[in-house]
């Protein structure tokens, strides 16, 4: 630990000395970026890495991407973050595992004069509750998926699929998880505000995205509502369960529209076969790309990035599932 602190201290001192010198030729030199992720092997993080690499190549920068083996290894990730700071890169991208634990480490980066932009999840730099906006102390901002807007997009797509009227059931995957709440509210509020002829049945939950429970919920809903037009599931497990309920009830494909979330082998197969209408995917590649873009622009042109960058999301269906900008964000 002592050693790390020494390295950090030396690095900070060096930053002070060479700080002005490096700015002079920043425009043409290849920038070195360290990205410390929440994971490395999972397909989601692989897509983040790919997006970051592609963006870096466009902007004359290189990235070194690393993350711990799983998302409980906060210590391991903080070691990686310390090591990244010690290397004194031009900038650091960081996806916070320890939203509070990482704050002192990030302040060390600031002291060392290394700009940090966060991705996916922000650290709580003001010392309070982790919050996306609270980044001024130790980072420039965060690139993340706006789940509420993603839910609203699902609502627009559902309305288009069912002709703007009829009964729709929302099956959520959590009543407490923030992403689950945002995906639900984005959908529900959009329907209520814009599509008055759509009737929303009471929201049902398959806690934790249990696919079996989701199947049972949807089976019952199909019995209780012969005129059900659409189902919106807020994560992969729920989407799978709903699709299986359609199969078990031997519904004609497309009779009831189903819009899900994320990807996965089974859901993608269901979309290709027409059992499921479509799904919303986040854009992990966009998360990687926007993070790199924000950092490079800041270092090279002193453009202060936005505090929050929405990295976008896509609706995909049978027609566009193979398009590169979609396919790169899907995982099995």
């Amino acid at each position, binding site marked *: 630990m002592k050693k790390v602190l020494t390295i950090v201290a030396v690095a900070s001192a060096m930053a002070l000395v060479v700080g002005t010198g490096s700015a002079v030729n920043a425009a043409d030199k290849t920038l070195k970026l360290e990205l410390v992720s929440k994971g490395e092997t*999972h397909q989601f993080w692989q897509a983040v890495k790919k997006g970051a690499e592609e963006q870096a190549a466009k902007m004359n920068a290189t990235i070194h991407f690393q993350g711990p083996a799983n998302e409980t290894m906060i210590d391991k990730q903080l070691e990686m973050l310390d090591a990244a700071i010690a290397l004194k890169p031009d900038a650091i991208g960081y996806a916070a595992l320890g939203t509070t634990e990482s704050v002192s480490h990030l302040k060390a980066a600031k002291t060392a004069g290394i700009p940090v932009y966060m991705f996916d999840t922000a650290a709580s730099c003001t010392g309070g509750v982790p919050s996306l906006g609270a980044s001024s102390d130790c980072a420039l901002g965060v690139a993340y998926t706006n789940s509420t807007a993603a839910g609203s997009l699902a609502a627009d797509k559902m309305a288009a699929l069912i002709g703007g009227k009829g009964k729709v059931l929302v099956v959520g995957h959590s*009543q407490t998880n923030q992403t689950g709440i945002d995906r639900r509210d984005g959908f529900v509020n959009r329907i209520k505000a814009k599509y008055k002829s759509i009737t929303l*049945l*009471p*929201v*049902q*939950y398959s*806690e*934790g*995205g*249990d*696919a*079996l429970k989701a*199947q*049972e*919920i949807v*089976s*019952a*809903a199909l*019995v*209780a509502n012969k005129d059900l037009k659409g189902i919106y599931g807020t994560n992969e*497990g729920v989407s*799978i*369960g709903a699709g*299986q309920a359609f*199969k*078990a*009830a031997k519904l004609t494909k497309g009779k009831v529209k189903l819009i899900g979330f994320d990807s*996965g*082998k*089974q859901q993608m*197969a269901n979309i290709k076969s027409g059992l499921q209408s479509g799904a919303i995917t986040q854009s992990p590649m966009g998360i990687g790309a926007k993070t790199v873009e924000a950092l490079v622009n800041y270092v090279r042109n002193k453009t202060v990035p936005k505090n929050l960058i929405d990295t976008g999301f896509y609706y995909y269906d049978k027609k566009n599932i193979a398009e590169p900008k979609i396919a790169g964000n899907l995982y*099995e």
Partner: protein
Amino acid sequence: MSKEVKAVEGEEVGGNRLRAFAKREIGRVLALGSLVVIFIFFTIMRPVFASWENVSGGILMSTTVTGLLAIGTTFVIITGGIDLSIGTATALVAIIVGKTVMALNLGVAGGMLVGVIVGGLIGVVNGLLITILKLPPFIATLATMKAAQGLALIVSDLKPVLFTTDVKGWDSIAQGNLIPKIPNGVLILFVGAVIAAIILNKTVLGRYTFAIGSNEAATKLSGVKVNNWLVAIYGLGGLYVGMAAVVLTSRLGSARPDLGLGYELEAIAAVIIGGTSLLGGKGTISGTIIGALIMSVLINGLRILELQQEWQYVVVGAVIVLAVWGDNVRRRRAGEIS
């Protein structure tokens, strides 16, 4: 209170064989009665509830996984033990079945065999932890529950295993119809229940299950190798976990590592509602099936009525309390417990 006791005694005095039967079986008769009452209530509220489509595809199908788990765990509870691992063990077995079936291209029969063997092994591990390490069943199976949850995530590499169409007929394990209009999953539950009832009532294993639950020390003193039988009983419970896992993967078309947590409590609730005593020594398979059906009729009915989900949880909780409390009151009156 005393008046009612007299009334019961009076009935007994003038009783015939039918009455004696009714008295002996009153727990199950009452449970079955509650089931019928709940069923009629939902039918009146929403007639579509009683449609065969809902009864077979909704209620009976929803009972398959919990029902199989509950049958196996009835044996364990009759011995005075408990098995908390059955939920996450279901996920672990499902993942292992999925991986082996897809990798070795095993058919339906091979996959079922793998499931039952792996499930049985997990049960045996529980039994060994309890008998050799002398851990209380609650702790031993809590440990297995955690370990199974972790292993399911590790073995699966956090990814669901999809049963592709290369494996012919996997979805028909639960969803096919060997008998017209009856899903195979329901058939498996029925056959599993009949086999369990025979084992419990007609075999040495069944007799020792009751004996260990009534008085383990006395059973040991009478020369029974209690430890060996306990391992066998937990192993038997595991076989049902294996079958439940196979049915689950067939219903979903995939094996998912994030499933199963909480299923153990639903299964245990079904067993207790069915009149099996948590203290051991008493219990029936038919009671367990009735208990499992009460749970799924109730949950399905509340969904059909589209009651807000938060209230669904509250109602289910209240019904569990009512069912078990009612059974306790009855037994106290009958002098079965003090």
